[in-house]
């Protein structure tokens, strides 16, 4: 397991696409001190290798073919409602290539 250092946490924040202040990292390091002790409790539990990782409380298999029913899509006005920058009925983006 990776040792928890400020650099490791900075790397995680960088992958998550945000930054944090030195003070915030100090708080997080303090939080990890307790969390690591709490997480160690899971390590004390025997026979976990006999259990499959549980991803959902119970199986819920959905298998059907939807009827091909025509539905009205969003109108242009609705689709553009949350766009911050728009022009001529389209979303306007900053130039990112060339």
């Amino acid at each position, binding site marked *: 397991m990776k040792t928890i250092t400020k650099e490791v*946490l900075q790397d995680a924040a960088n992958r998550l696409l945000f930054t944090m202040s030195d003070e915030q990292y100090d708080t997080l390091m303090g939080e990890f001190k307790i969390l690591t002790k709490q997480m160690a409790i899971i390590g004390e539990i025997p026979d976990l290798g006999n259990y499959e990782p549980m991803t959902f409380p119970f199986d819920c298999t959905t298998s059907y073919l939807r009827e091909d029913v025509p539905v009205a899509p969003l109108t242009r006005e609705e689709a553009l409602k949350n766009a911050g920058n728009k022009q001529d009925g389209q979303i306007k983006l900053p130039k990112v290539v060339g």
Partner: protein
Amino acid sequence: MDMLDLSLAELHQALVEKKTTPLELTKEAIARAKANSDNAFEYINEEGALAFAATLTEPEADNPLWGIPYVAKDNFSTKGIPTTASSNILNGYVPVFDATVIQKLKDAKAVMIAKATMDELAMGGTGTTGHLGITYNPYDPSHQHEIGGSSCGSAVSVADGIVPFALGSDTGDSVRKPASFAGLVGTKPTWGRISRYGLFPFAPSLDHVGYFTRDVYSAAVLLDVLAGRDENDSTSSTRPVEKYESKMNEPIAGKKIAVIQEIYDSLADETLLKAFNHSLDVLKEQGAIIDFVSMDSTLLESLYPTYMVISCAEATSNDANLDGIKFGPYRGGKTYQEVMFNARNEGFSELIKRRFVIGSYCLMRENQEELFLRAQRNRAKIVESVNAILKDHDAIYLAAAPSVAPRFDQSSDRLSDEYLMADNHLCLGNFAGLPSITLPLGFENGLPLGVNFMTGAFQETLLFQLAAAFERASGLAELSVRNPKEGNL
């Protein structure tokens, strides 16, 4: 006592007999919402609610929600109404569709008067982390006590008598814990019983739609309306919907109720213990069989870290779309990475960033087996233990929290059994996806205490039967700040 302080059943009767109208009720609910000083609302839907209520002129005798005002947590998608999940990353976002539960309530002609504050993105249990600041407990006018979270504003709405019910969401205990701190009935049905289409995901393997009411009957009839298969949510159950209130008046004699000894032993609050013990005697008097059962204490101590690892890891992945491009205000940048950095830097509070880093750390390749997958294996073992208890018992019954609502300046020893077990056991219902209900038990220094029942999967009718029997004994149905009661326990 005003019309709005009547029970849902009485209110329905008054509407059917035209003693009041949806418009009058909506006006009164909005007036109460505006007068509330607990920071419970993101948005008051005054114009929309009044316009909708004005269209409701012919009462529907067989529709208990007709014309009833309600509040929704701000993580339900509401068409044309701003929805932020109390996070700056979603400021200005106006959904173009309704969540299935919002649509169902609209179809039932219930009137949504407001969107409620919450812990940011539902990731918190204190009601202190939303972008509008702290939400307060209406039982403490001095504003020194939490109401809990993450569904804090929804809890205030019902506890302060603003509406008879409010929607929330529950990933660890986010409806059932604040219900305990606010003297309310807080319900989380079986995972998959209510569609989550349009509920902003936090940790989908644990997320549930839940709700607050002031009595068990309202909780049962609400589930009648909200439950059911939804083809927009592939995890919603195809099981038929029941009449969940159908056994509420049946006796509970012979029902086997388990109390987990280790969680009971971790309680330290004497007033709570006294009231809880009294409630056990009362349940016995009604013919219920109370069994103290044992569950491995290390397994119980591992509930909270298991929850933290799984929920933070799932959240880290889920919220990757909040990036200033797909969702969130555009804050500029020369490259798309810079655009995302700027949006996420300014959009997320410190707490959310910390939770994401914890999730990311647990998901790192070197840590995944030892942290994330081990937590998921441990979840399987926890669920096996809970289901083993419920194989021989109708329900598990426990104090919902170790005390009344904590003060904001109060901190607990996060390595103690009281914290790890008594304060965090409600997530058992999320791990196993089991139906679970919190009910008011009594008071300590004017603040409410609560208990919780949990039954097997899809046994909501049984859950409401047990809860109704408890409620008759407690005498605390219809409790609110405006309708104070002492109770019998």
